[in-house]
């Protein structure tokens, strides 16, 4: 845990309780996920009850209490994507990476989660990796998409 960095994030938001969501978002960007130790530290530092922080971090899907991969795959399960076959995309991802939803791969390269709508229904079925949207994905394309990220890392 990088205490100095976390302190400066808290400082940036003037340690105000109403800014807790923004603070947690920045900390998650910093640490990739929200470790228990860090949350306990923030609670002490901000004099905010740990119960409240835990409730917030478990309420919003955008927060993760477990480590995430360096690349986060988001599979859209909205109506259009569901009809277009997002279920088989999910199966394919699980098979290829041998992980469950919300769980990182052994090398921490990928983790994947499902989301309810990415707001890009015209591109259905959508699979987003980090901030990049891949359109009209079918199970056959999954491996190819993932391998581009692996190659990038190898460079």
């Amino acid at each position, binding site marked *: 845990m990088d205490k100095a960095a976390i302190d400066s994030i808290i400082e940036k938001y003037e340690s105000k309780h109403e800014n807790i969501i923004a603070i947690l978002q920045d900390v998650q960007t910093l640490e990739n996920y929200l470790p228990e130790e860090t949350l306990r530290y923030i609670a002490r530092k901000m004099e905010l009850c*740990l119960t*409240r922080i835990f409730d917030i971090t478990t309420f919003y899907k955008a927060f993760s209490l477990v480590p995430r991969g360096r690349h986060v795959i988001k599979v859209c399960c909205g109506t259009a994507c569901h009809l277009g076959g997002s279920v088989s995309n999910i199966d394919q991802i699980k098979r290829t990476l041998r992980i469950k939803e919300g769980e990182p791969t052994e090398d921490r390269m990928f983790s994947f989660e499902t989301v309810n709508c990415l707001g890009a229904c015209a591109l259905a079925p959508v699979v987003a990796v980090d901030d990049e949207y891949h359109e009209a994905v079918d199970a056959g394309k999954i491996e190819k998409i993932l391998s581009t990220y692996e190659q990038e890392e190898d460079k």
Partner: protein
Amino acid sequence: MKIPIIIDNKMVKVDRGTPVLLAARKADIFIPTLCYHELLEPYGACRLCIVEVVQNRQRRLVTSCNYPAEPGMEVFTDTDPVRKIRKVLVELLLARCSEVPVVQKLARRMGIETSELKKKETKECVLCGLCVRFCEEVVSVSAIGLSNRGIEREVTTPFKTASDTCIGCGSCSYICPTGCIEMVPDKTPGMREMHMGKLTLEPCTNHYQCENCSTDQQFLNNLKKEVTRFRDTFSRFRNQES
């Protein structure tokens, strides 16, 4: 400033902003509740206290425990839509905890014998939030909270581990209408532990034996000292008077 409002054709005078539920109680009109408690802020979770309100010529369904009384408003507590909604709610509650006396009583009062819905368990958390709010607002500890969302929502401590702030007062267990937070004897005689749904809480290293606890002894001694001091001053004051 007192304002008049009309509830089921009866006129009641209450302070502006008083929850409609309390106004109705003042007029001896029964509205069922589950998540409301006099000591706590209204929460609006159980929806049982639903009523129809006519305001500015608009008719709306609202929860009376957290709906403020305003001048010129008229309230109906027993209309068809209200009855229909309450019936569904009670049936759902009955399916969730069929053996909880509070729920059974509510159901009987509404003329429901058994729920047609499939039974899940005999007693289960109904997410009324009473325990969480009591721990926060009255005990001022906030050891438990409502985490997750949707069907995964549950009462639990942070990280679902033994809480380091819970003082083991048992308030949550006392106030829980469904009896799903229990303080039970431990395997060791004379010891207690807490069960919170699927979670067992063992936060107190002294197993809640408050009577034998050194923390409490210290507190009691201080208290005794304070009381003696108060009595002394008080008697001196009285002697001066006479």
